[in-house]
């Protein structure tokens, strides 16, 4: 199977090289593995650094948000004939060493979408993250009827069926909730695996803030009614 590891990145020159380098080269069940960095209109040297470290880089001329970058990654994966797509954050909070676990779930357990959950493993997370996540999980259940422990995780794997069927619309952070809408709509099989998240001052500054919550809720509502 062909695997594409996609890293949406916006002004990540400090971490991007490290993230690319720590993605495993050989994974059981994978014949070909490529790394795609979607540079979402960075104004720093993210593009050059990603290219220098051997990633395929697709560049948005202006910043469009996480959703826009993930949509580009999905289109790229479909166009180039990859069967599995993994998305991983560019700020270094996800451990690329967990990628084989995602692949195992997709290939061996035939799961269409696998989400890395930060809450299945004991660990400490900032309180605001816990609140934002609990609220988002509740809304995901309310809107799409899927019980998840981590609706906002950016560490995900899409198998062949999911890659073929999932069609995202959102441009911003609300894309994370939208993935669950697509799982429900297309009746895709879903699994979670525990992941460890490395919260550094850098990654905390980059992630979702509690102030984003009203915007995400409003945008999900507008999408429902428009």
């Amino acid at each position: 199977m062909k695997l594409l590891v996609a890293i949406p990145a916006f002004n990540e020159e400090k971490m991007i090289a490290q993230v690319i380098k720590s993605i495993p080269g050989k994974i059981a069940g994978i014949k070909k593995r490529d790394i795609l960095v979607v540079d979402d209109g960075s104004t720093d040297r993210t593009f050059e650094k990603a290219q220098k470290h051997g990633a395929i880089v697709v560049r948005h001329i202006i910043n469009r948000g996480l959703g826009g970058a993930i949509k580009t990654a999905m289109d790229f994966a479909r166009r180039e004939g990859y069967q599995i797509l993994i998305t991983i954050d560019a700020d270094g909070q996800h451990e690329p060493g967990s990628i084989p676990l995602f692949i195992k779930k997709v290939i061996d357990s035939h799961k269409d979408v696998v989400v890395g959950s930060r809450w299945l493993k004991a660990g400490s997370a900032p309180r605001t993250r816990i609140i934002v996540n609990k609220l988002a999980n509740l809304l995901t259940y309310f809107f799409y009827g899927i019980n998840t422990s981590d609706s906002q995780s950016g560490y995900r794997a899409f198998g062949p069926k999911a890659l073929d069927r999932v069609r995202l619309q959102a441009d911003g952070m609300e894309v994370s909730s939208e993935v669950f809408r697509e799982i429900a709509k297309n009746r895709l099989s879903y699994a979670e695996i525990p992941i460890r998240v490395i919260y550094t001052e850098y990654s905390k500054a980059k992630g979702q803030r509690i102030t984003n919550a009203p915007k995400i809720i409003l945008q999900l509502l507008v999408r429902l009614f428009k």
Partner: protein
Amino acid sequence: MSLTQILLIVFLLFALSRVTLQYKSGNLSLLSFLFWSFLFAAAVYLTAFPDQASRIAQLLGIGRGVDAVIYISIAVLFYLVFRLYVYLENVRQEITDLVRKLALDSNKKNGRKKSKN
């Protein structure tokens, strides 16, 4: 007719003339033109004949004509803000689609160039 009424009518007529101009220059669809013309024309009529507003208010079960105008205006404004929000969302999404297409096309082109070399 009071001075306030006259000033309000002059302003509303100005707004009505803008609607016509926008339609003529092709910036407004026929449906939008009809909607906005009706809205401003109704406002001119109710400003000129406030008693008519009271009749509408009685029909709707609201005490005073002015109250009815305010209630209806707020409802219309809320709806228009919602439409505007949806419109802006659509424009944002169209820009994103364009940016994404440019990025993917440019990558394809560069890929072809590399494989030729």
